[in-house]
């Protein structure tokens, strides 16, 4: 079943025409990786889905329902969790408060806590620390956990590996693979290792357009395609 669909999405930031017709179809379950070099429009695509940016043209549908043009909080309530590029951890809030904030019903965090701690055992140690005191890796785990507090159909995760140590990236890969059975993930990733370790399908964006899509194993074999669109990141850095 198609969970998320983007059809001819055009998005402007101020005067600039950033997305110039993005098409995407995400089936339920698994990880869809969104690739493309810096400035290709990956972040803008995620923001256009969650509603932080309003597409000027085109349609975004979640499980058949149009969500484009709706305010971000309404889109999120449809069952989308968003982990932004800068992680969006609230530095003056404790880990517990950061997670509590994501509750859409009372008690959701309590019900989910065991699962989160199993996924990221570190979080338990920092439960009452301010978000600002966590390391980058811990912040990323918190940001992902926060998207897991309510029952989200879809997670949008923007470059989680950015600036993190290889060991943490491995931990994230493990977590994402575990989450596959539970939710659907759209993952923006420049780290080709993480992308190939978790991805099932891929889309490649270039200059605000979807230029390629297919199954991840095919892309892993196609080094020419990697070189053309993914530049440096396509060298397939081993961790």
């Amino acid at each position, binding site marked *: 079943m198609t969970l998320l669909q983007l059809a001819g999405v055009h998005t402007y930031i101020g005067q600039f025409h950033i997305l110039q017709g993005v098409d995407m179809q995400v089936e339920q379950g698994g990880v869809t990786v969104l690739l493309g070099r810096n400035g290709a429009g990956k972040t803008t695509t995620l923001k256009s889905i969650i509603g932080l940016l309003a597409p000027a043209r085109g349609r975004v549908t979640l499980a058949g329902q149009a969500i484009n043009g709706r*305010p971000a909080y309404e889109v999120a309530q449809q069952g989308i969790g968003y982990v932004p590029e800068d992680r969006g951890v*609230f*530095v003056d*809030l404790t880990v517990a408060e950061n997670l509590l*904030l994501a509750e859409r019903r009372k008690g959701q965090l309590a019900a989910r806590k065991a699962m989160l701690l199993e996924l990221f055992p570190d979080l338990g140690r920092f439960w009452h620390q301010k978000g600002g005191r966590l390391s980058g890796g811990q912040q990323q785990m918190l940001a992902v956990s926060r998207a897991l507090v309510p029952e989200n159909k879809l997670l949008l995760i923007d470059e989680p590996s950015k600036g993190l140590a290889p060991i943490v990236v491995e931990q994230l890969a493990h977590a994402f693979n575990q989450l596959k059975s539970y939710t659907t993930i759209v993952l923006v990733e420049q780290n080709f290792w993480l992308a190939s370790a978790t991805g099932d399908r891929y889309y490649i964006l270039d200059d605000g357009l979807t230029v390629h899509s297919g199954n991840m194993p095919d892309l892993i074999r196609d080094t020419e395609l990697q070189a053309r669109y993914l530049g440096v990141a396509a060298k397939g850095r081993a961790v």
Partner: protein
Amino acid sequence: METPHLTFPLLVTLLLNGVAIGMLYFLVAVGLSVIFGLMHVLNFAHGSMSMVGAYVGLAVFRLFGDPATGTAPTWAFALAILGGAMAGFVLGWVTERFLIRPLYKRPIFLILLTLGLILVLDETVKLIWGTSPQGLVIVPGLSGTVDVLGQPFAVYRIFLISFGLLMIGLTWYVVNKTRIGIIIRAGVQDSDMVQTLGINVRQIFTLVFAFGAALAAMGGIATTPFTGVHPAMSGDFLLKTFIVVVIGGFGSTTGTALGAICLGLTEQFLPWFFPRFAAVGPVVLMAVVLLVRPEGLFSVSGRRAG
């Protein structure tokens, strides 16, 4: 000019006075601080909203008072505070919902709008209540003085200190211990991110604006036993609010409380030590803090709430 000797009991009195006045400043200023931290709106009409609260409060007070003597039972003052606060709440609600909201994307026009509101509110007050100052007689339970180290100290100031501490405690509780408070503190940092968690931040904006105006209105009415009500209040309040919030740091309730007490004490002590600078001292202090430490004297890291 000869300065009278500053004795220890006098020092204590000045200290207590400063704290009492500081409580008033806290009430008036805290709304502006949180509103700015959360929605980046500098509400220039904040002082005017405080003044409207004072006038409405006085009107409520008079409803139950004796027109001949101007006195009223103690509970009439409680009702006055409540009535003023309600007027402030409604005013804040309507302002945010219908005037501010359409302009969030145009920050310069937001400033212009709140400036225009000053004219509208101040002139409306003058239209309804006239321009001459009006007094409010302190109700029986709160009048008179008590003895503090041999110096008379007004009961009303004790009331102010207790009421102020109560309100500081309440805001602290709401901001630090409730879900709304978590949303406010998170929103001060990044309200877009709060939205993406499924929270309608706009609703919280309206609520905060309304409560902020209500607190300012309470501050307005609580001032009247000292100064009476008069149309120049709005400008006075606005300037004091700016001073407090700049000293304390925008968006922080604790900072606002500290900034308010700081200003109260400065105003009490400056005339004793530097009488020539008493009038400009606080404004200069504000300018210096803005230039040297724009995030406020009491903030640990950039902008923070709590």
